Every structure is written in C-alpha cells, then in structure tokens.
C-alpha cells in the first residue's frame, strides 16, 4: 500500500513550469531517493508535498487522504514531516529545547509516540544537549534537523539535500542515521543532487529532469540509463566511457 | 443635495491627499529599508512647527513650507546615518528604535514648544465661489498642493535616474548593487526624502489644524492604515488608498456619524486585511520565507 501518492502534480511560476504532471507513489516503509540536476524541480516537488506551496494542478494523497489543501502543520500532525536544505534548526535554542519543541505533537499522545523513543540518546546528542544548535558542526545540525522531525512522531520524512556540503565522514554518519530511522519504521524520501550519496542507501530512485520524471527504479539501473547520464553530463558524456 | 455631495467629496480629497502625503514617506522608507518608522508622525509635527515659526516670523507660508521640508530632510539624514543604517531590514529592531525616537522628540517638543495649541495664518483666507458652491480657499490650496507634491514625487520615482535607482532597490537590492547603484548612499537619500514629505505634510496640516506637540499620532495612524491598504511598500497604492480613505471618512462623518470619523479607516483596514490578504492594491506582497 502506498503511503504517499502524488497524482499529476504541476507547478507553474509565471512563465516557468517547475514541475509538470508528476505522478509518484511511495510505499509504506520505503526508503527512496529523488535525484536530478539542479533546477530539475526536486525542491519544488517537496515544497508541494509538505504544504509550503500549493500546486497549480494535481493532488497529493497521504494514507489515501487528500492533503493538497492542508496547511503544513496539519500535514505534520498526520505524520508527514520535512527537513530543509542546509539544516534548518532553531539556532539560538539548545538541542534539548529544540527536541522538546518538536515533541509537542507526541507529548501525552500515545498513538503518536516517536518511533525512536529517546532521540537524544539514539543520536548521541547527550554531550551537546545544552549547546545552542547554531554552534554545532554542520553534520550534527543536519542530524538534529532529522531528530526534530522524528520527535514529532513522523510516519514519513522528506529530507531535502541532507548531505550537501558535508565532509566524507559526516556523510557516512548521516547515512547511518537515515538507515537507523528507516529501520525503526519511518518511510523516508531523500532529495539528493549527488547520486553517489544515495547509491548504497536507497532501494529506489526517482529521477527528475526539467520538472518531469525521466526514470524510476533501482539505483544501479538508474546510473546506467542513458537519459539520466545525459541529464547530468550532457550528450557528449557517453562518448568518453 | 448634489452640492453637498460635491463639497463632501472635495473635502475628502483634500484630507485624503494629506494622508497620502504622510503615507508615501512611510511606505517609501518601509519598501526600501524594511524599517517601519513610527517617528514619521513626529516629523510631521516638527514640520508643522518649523512652518509655524517661519510664518509667525514673517517669512510667509511658502518659505515655511520649503524650510519644513528641508529641515526634516536634514533631520532624516542625520537619523539614518546615526541610527537606522545599523539596523537595515531588521523589522523589529528598526521599529523599536523608532519608538525610542518618538519618546525623545515628542517630550522635548512638549518641553520647548509647550503643549499650547498654535495656529498660523494660512496664505489664502475666506472662501471661493465655484459653480454656485462655497469652498474654503485654503482647503482648495492644500488640495492643489498635495496633488502637486504627490505627482512630483511619483514622477521623480518614475522618470529620474535616482528615482529609478530607488525603485530598483525596492524591488531587488542585490540587483541594484549589481548594476552599480551605491545602495548605502541611496538608502540615506530615501530616508531624507521620506522625511521631507513628512515635513511638507506637517506644514500643510499646520495651515488647517491646531499645532501641538501631540498632533503626530493622528496622521501617523492614517499613514499606517494606508501603508497596509496600499500593499506595504507600494507608493501608488498608498496614494490611491489615501484618497479613498479621505473620501470614505468625509462621507462617513457627513452622513453617518462625525464623532466616529477616525474609526472608519480602522474598520476599512480590518475588512481589507480579511478580504484582501495582499492589501487592496497589493502587487508586492512579499512572501517571507
């Protein structure tokens, strides 16, 4: 059964079509990637799914419920939570305060308990607990973004370029965290620009180019797809194989 | 009946034009600097006093008007350089600082000018008969002057090199810097210009109504209402809204209730915010993400 269904969604800004007729279904318990060259419409699609923008056409279903017109906080209540590019956290608040805030939905609500009960311990935040989030290394800040999303009791996470700008070591850590969250029962959908990051992580990859889905399948198959190679490196690319 | 309507209409246009003169300054400064200057009303008040002192010293209304504008432009320049440039685009910081300036200006004014009501002789006295209707000459003059001022202001923004640089900065500060506009200097000019408009409004207010150290809040309240109605940062929007508000108030107090005059604008404002989330003429509803 699919947890999230996107049906014929389009987004136009003035003369620009950022997303055109995209239909995608993400199954419950899936760990999927969304890739594409810059400007392919990945973030716009996430914005539509998370309620940041209203699509020009099409609809979004979450657990078979039409959520196209819902406010972001209503979607979060239903369990659909996103993170932002470049780690959006509360920079002046400590990790502990940030997580307390995020827990407000699950507080005293048995059905909404986060899949990972003690987020602080699981993510290894204990030693930073009282530091302002803005002072953390960027890798930890990304993890905090994810941890806050989990703490709301999310059933599905949308991660927007979580690995951009991280060091190799931080990327490995982040992959471990995402696997861990997925193993605990959260459906995960990750945007990445960098295919390399997703390779060992996801079971399925959706490729967007110029606002449309051009490929959808296992990561291995995707990297061999000539359309994907062309989207990334241009038509001269395969001449140099 | 017809005559009554025309007279109420003219009165509304006149008062609306005054409001618009106040509002364009607030709107321009907000649009370009992101600062909501609560002390704009105090500039109106000081402008009225400058005009009062010039007229009572015998230099006449026109010099008084010119010097009110000049003095406020200078004061604005000083405030921008000394304070506001350090908190550009910080909405809450700028607003708080301007509240502090209110306390300074208004209390000093009350101490030095005394709270007594002052008046100066308007350049035109008596009435004018037009198509069988009586109009106050000074009110017609004020109407003509605000039309000239607002039009000149509009043409300046539309047609001159500096005006275009200002408009460009309002739409995209980075873009303006990219094409070689010295954004820091232009920002200072904008604040001075907005303050000069407040000085002009003050001189015109003073030619019609009593001048007191506490006269600022009325014009400021109207200016704020228009800033929102016009779509936060749109100068033409604020002007159109100004005339509409003036007319609404005039007709409201003529045919409904005069004691509730100041309430009409407020009700209009609440209704507009509920019905038109981007302002009545809101092209530039800037989404903050």
């Amino acid at each position, binding site marked *: 059964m699919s947890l999230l269904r996107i049906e014929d969604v389009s987004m136009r800004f*003035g003369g620009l079509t950022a997303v055109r007729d995209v239909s995608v279904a993400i199954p419950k318990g899936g760990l999927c990637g969304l890739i594409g060259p810059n400007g392919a419409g990945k973030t716009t699609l996430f914005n539509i799914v998370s309620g940041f923008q209203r699509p020009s056409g099409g609809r979004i279903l979450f657990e078979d419920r039409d959520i196209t017109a819902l406010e972001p906080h209503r979607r979060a209540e239903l369990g659909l939570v996103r993170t932002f590019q*470049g780690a959006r956290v509360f920079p002046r608040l400590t990790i502990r305060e940030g997580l307390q805030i995020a827990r407000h939905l699950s507080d005293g609500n048995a059905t909404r308990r986060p899949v990972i009960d003690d987020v602080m311990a699981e993510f290894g935040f204990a030693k930073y607990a009282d530091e302002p989030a803005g002072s953390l290394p960027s890798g930890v800040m990304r993890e905090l973004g994810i941890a806050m999303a989990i703490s709301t009791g999310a059933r599905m996470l949308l991660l927007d370029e979580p690995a951009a700008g991280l060091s190799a070591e931080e990327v490995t850590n982040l992959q471990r965290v995402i696997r861990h969250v997925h193993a605990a029962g959260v459906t995960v959908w990750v945007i990445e620009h960098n295919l390399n990051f997703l390779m060992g992580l996801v079971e399925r990859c959706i490729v967007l180019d110029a606002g449309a889905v051009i490929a959808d399948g296992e990561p291995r198959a995707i990297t061999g797809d000539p359309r994907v190679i062309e989207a990334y490196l241009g038509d001269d690319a395969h001449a140099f194989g | 009946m017809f005559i009554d309507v025309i007279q109420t209409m003219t009165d509304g246009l006149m008062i609306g034009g005054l409001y618009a003169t106040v509002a364009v300054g607030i709107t321009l400064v907000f649009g370009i600097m992101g600062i909501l200057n609560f002390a704009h009303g105090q500039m109106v008040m000081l402008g009225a006093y400058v005009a009062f002192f010039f007229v009572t010293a015998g230099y006449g209304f026109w010099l008084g008007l010119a010097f009110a504008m000049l003095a406020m432009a200078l004061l604005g320049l000083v405030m921008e350089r000394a304070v506001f440039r350090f908190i550009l685009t910080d909405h809450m910081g700028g607003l708080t600082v301007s509240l502090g300036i209110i306390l300074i200006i208004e209390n000093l004014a009350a101490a030095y000018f005394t709270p007594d009501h002052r008046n100066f002789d308007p350049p035109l006295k008596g009435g004018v008969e037009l198509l069988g209707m009586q109009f106050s000459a000074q009110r017609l003059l004020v109407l003509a002057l605000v039309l000239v001022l607002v039009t000149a202001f509009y043409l300046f923004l539309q047609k001159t090199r500096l005006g275009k640089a200002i408009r460009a900065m309002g739409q995209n500060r980075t873009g303006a810097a990219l094409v070689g506009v010295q954004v820091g200097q232009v920002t200072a000019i904008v604040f001075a210009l907005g303050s000069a408009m407040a000085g002009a409004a003050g001189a015109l207010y003073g030619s019609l109504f009593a001048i007191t150290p506490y006269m600022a809040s009325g014009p400021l309240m109207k200016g704020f209402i228009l800033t929102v109605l016009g779509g936060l940062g749109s100068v033409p929007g604020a002007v159109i809204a100004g005339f509409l508000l003036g007319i609404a108030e005039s007709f409201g107090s003529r045919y409904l209730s005069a004691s509730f005059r100041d309430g009409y604008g407020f009700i209009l404002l609440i209704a507009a915010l509920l019905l038109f989330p981007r302002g009545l003429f809101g092209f530039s509803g800037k989404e903050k993400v």
Partner: protein
Amino acid sequence: MMLMLSVENLSVSYGNVRAVSDLSLRVAPGSVVGLVGANGAGKTSTLNALTGFVGHGATVIFEGQNVSGRSTADLVRLGLVQVAQGRQLFPEMTVLENLEMGGFLWRAAEMRQQVERMYEKFPVLQERRNQAAGTLSGGEQQMLAVARGLMARPKLLLIDEPCLGLAPKMVDRLGELIRQINEDGISILLVEQNTAFVFRLASHAYVLENGQCVLEGTPDELRSNDRVRSAYLGI
C-alpha cells in the same frame, strides 16, 4: 601576457564557517573559464568576493590593476560585472527599464545606443520591451539578465548558474549566446552545476569541492577524470 583577472589564495568565511579556502583563479583575456562544483561548494561565494559583495583576504588583479576592497559600483565601472544567480531582475520594471538600469553608470546617450545593440542581439527583448520583467518566461528572464549585464559594457562577465531552471532547448540557446558574447571580445567566468554545459563552452575549468579547488584543466581532461565521473554519477 597580461591576465584579465587573477586572484591568489582567496578565502571567504561566514563567522567560523569557511565557504572558500585558498582558491587561486586566472582568466586569460578573451577566454571562457568555468567554475564547477555541487551545491555549497563555494562557487557563488567566490563570485560574490570577486565583485565586492563579501570580504575576502586576497589580492584581486583585474587588467593589471589591484582592485581588492573596491566597491561593487567601482568594479562595475571598471568592467567587472556579475550576472548573479537567480537573475536578480527588477520584476515590476519593464524590460527596457531593466536594461536602462544595467547602463546605470553610463551617460544617457551612450546607454541608449547600448540598448539598441542589445535589441539587435536579443530581438525577443525588443518585442517585450514594455512588458514587466517578472512576466517573462524563465528563458527570457535569463536573456534579460545577461543583456542587463552587457549593458554595463563589461570586459569580464561573471555568470552564475544561468541554466538553473531552464528547459534543455533554452540551455542550448543560452550556450550559443554566451559563445557569441565571448566572440565579441568579452571574457567570461562561468559558474555552473551543469557540468556538461560548462565543458561545451570553456577552454579551462576549475572543480570546487567544499570550498577548495580539487582539480583544474581543460574540459577533455576533466571529463575523463575518474573523480569527476564518480562525483556526479557514482560510477
């Protein structure tokens, strides 16, 4: 031979976050040089440092003249002009007004001549001259952004991510246009994530990762480099 632009050990920091470290760049007169790298690699910070938007510790030599620390307006006057990411147009102004703003530092007569030249180069802008820039299509907006940059009569044009959000056909036209501009004698520093686009146009390119230059060379050298292939395709 005098270089158009040279900068040694350029570093940009925001607080204690280093966006660019010790980057050295050279642009020969009349060339197209590329600067590629993923999101957050420090490309835009580099451009912003070169055009005076952010501070940096380096010495920037433009046409043999030390221009470090000059204001953006000064640099534009000297001929170092940036076409920034996201186009940075004035959306409520007409196409013509946008172009006129591009020639802000020129005298009116010269500015008008330059507008005519832009109309020749971009006929579509002439058709749309009285339309608000915000209502143009993405491709047209990018054309306008480039044309506005050209209005300042640059010697070196820094173009940041021009392909962002454009349809493939539009990207091709843009590439052709950049080639033409270069043939008119304007040097170009092209920043792009679209590596293929840069490799088609540039004679030399720098690859940035985490604020550092990890590779440089001709497009052919880079295209066959394993590191580039692995970074972008994971193969």
